């Protein structure tokens, strides 16, 4: 199907690109279907485009790109809701916030998107621990 996107105009996607958030996403609870779109020019990011509203699109990145040792414990509730059978079926993404200068970009490592790749069910998992930050700076002073 062809969908309208915020950053890439109209593009063709297939059903297997569509994630289902049964519970919605905090702040966007009414939206349940999002397409994951890779950017051929910038392969390190993916877009998560709402199918309900073309203006709603998250920019995401695998959290291990940001923190090499990133590991989390997925809650029993999420394992049950997403029907996760094996850890290797799970994909994680961190949502990025980029306002103005790219140097100030942050990643939400405290509330990653958890996807069961076997059925494309997804949630935004909120981790109740102090190890991870909602606004983890991506660019270190030494990088620029």
């Amino acid at each position, binding site marked *: 199907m062809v969908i309208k996107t915020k950053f890439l105009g109209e593009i063709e996607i297939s059903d297997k690109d569509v994630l289902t958030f049964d519970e919605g996403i*905090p702040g966007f609870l009414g939206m349940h279907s999002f397409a994951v779109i890779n950017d051929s*020019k*910038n392969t390190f990011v993916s877009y998560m485009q709402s199918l309900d509203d073309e203006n709603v699109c*998250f920019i995401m990145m695998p959290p291990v790109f940001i923190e090499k040792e990133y590991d989390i414990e997925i809650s*029993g509730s999420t394992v049950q809701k997403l029907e996760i059978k094996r850890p290797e079926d799970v994909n994680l993404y961190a949502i990025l916030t*980029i306002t103005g200068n790219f140097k100030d970009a942050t990643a939400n490592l405290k509330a990653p998107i958890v996807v069961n790749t076997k059925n494309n069910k997804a949630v*935004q998992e909120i981790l109740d621990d102090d190890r991870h930050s*909602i606004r983890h700076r991506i660019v270190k002073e030494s990088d620029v």
Partner: protein
Amino acid sequence: MLVLTRKKDEAIIIGDDIEIIVSEISEDKVKLAIKAPKNIKIFRKELIKAVEDENVKSVETSGFDISKLGEVIKK
């Protein structure tokens, strides 16, 4: 909204299998102990609010050059 008064070590039951016990009371704080099945999500409300606010802010992102971020990530 139901409003109940409870003393230290008293509890309330919600549904069949959720129990909330008032374990400690001090001047402006209460400590609660919660017994609930694993599939029930329990969060401090301000944490959910912080995630909501950050999601809204993330979606406002526009007009930036993402390739610059890539140059940094690849290092």
